[in-house]
């Protein structure tokens, strides 16, 4: 008995040590790295003006519709196509009547390379109802700040990309009264987008 007890204690402590080393995580990150953007001021949403290939676009002109806004740029090979494809999938899930009450804006934060014409072709590839817009640095900064979108141009001396635009990859939902009602993480499934859109459609969809 006296020989067994210390041995049992050693085994128990060794097991605890192994568990601590290999299994214990103090602050498990949510899957997909969905860490919320830390902002000093909570995004308020609000009206902004940007520019499409057909002229100026005021967010307020879409009152009465549910608006989805996604900030990105066309040189982005992975994140932006992923999210735009999910948004396009959500649009295709809606009935034609529902779709008429929805507007999607793809805001390019890379006006140096993304002209309104380029954006028009790019956005249409994902879905004809997606409108590509961009603007001056000041216009973009203002729109981004209203929605809590972050972006930053980063020169890449070791890549043929030239410069990369780091950006948050949220999808913002604005209701028919122009209020920011939801902010979705990168790659949020289309089913969730569809449910949210339907919950805010005028007349209950």
């Amino acid at each position: 008995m006296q020989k067994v007890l210390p041995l049992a204690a050693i085994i128990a402590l060794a097991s605890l040590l192994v568990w601590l080393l290999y299994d214990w995580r103090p602050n498990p990150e949510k899957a997909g790295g969905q860490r919320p953007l830390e902002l000093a001021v909570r995004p308020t949403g609000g009206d902004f003006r940007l520019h499409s290939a057909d002229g100026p676009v005021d967010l307020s002109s879409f009152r009465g519709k549910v608006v989805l806004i996604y900030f990105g740029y066309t040189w982005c090979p992975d994140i932006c196509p992923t999210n735009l494809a999910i948004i396009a999938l959500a649009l295709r899930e809606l009935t034609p009547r529902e779709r008429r009450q929805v507007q999607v804006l793809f805001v390019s934060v890379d006006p140096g390379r993304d002209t309104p014409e380029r954006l028009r072709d790019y956005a249409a590839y994902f879905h004809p109802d997606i409108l590509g817009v961009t603007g001056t640095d000041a216009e973009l900064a203002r729109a981004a700040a209203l929605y809590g979108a972050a972006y930053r141009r980063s020169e890449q001396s070791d890549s043929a990309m030239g410069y990369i635009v780091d950006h948050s990859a949220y999808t913002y939902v604005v209701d028919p009264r122009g209020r920011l009602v939801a902010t979705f993480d990168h790659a949020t499934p289309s089913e969730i987008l569809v449910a949210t859109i339907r919950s805010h459609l005028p007349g209950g969809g």
Partner: protein
Amino acid sequence: MFIRAAIIAVPAIWMLPVVAGESMPTIEVAAPYVRAVPPGQPNSAAFMQLSNEGDADRALVAAASSAADVVELHTHTMVDGMMQMRRIERIDLPAGQTVELAPGGLHVMLIGLTRALLPGETVELTLTLDDDSDVQVVAPVRPVGAMPMSHRHH
């Protein structure tokens, strides 16, 4: 006497795969695909699973393709709430492990596409490892949003 012979022969036989292994590829590529892109978009990405079936750690250090002017290795990390994509010099392939290149993470980036990438076509990639060996990959072009067939059959 038979036992002595066996003692010599068994290790010798055992050594054969090591000697012959120089010509056998140890990196297996599964489920490769390249993203189709909108017309005029200059860049795309290739995704795949890389399994190091050998005993030695390897690393992917370069890639090339006739489909793009430049091919680089890239990854994404979430920093300050923003997705950062950065070029990396190598993708480590530890012995006995499978490394996944998937959307939102590691990928082979095709910069300056030399032709449109249309679903149904294929893209040939040459992956260069740290031991100077090459792995040839034929990757189908898939539309964005298509689910890659990523499960492996054991």
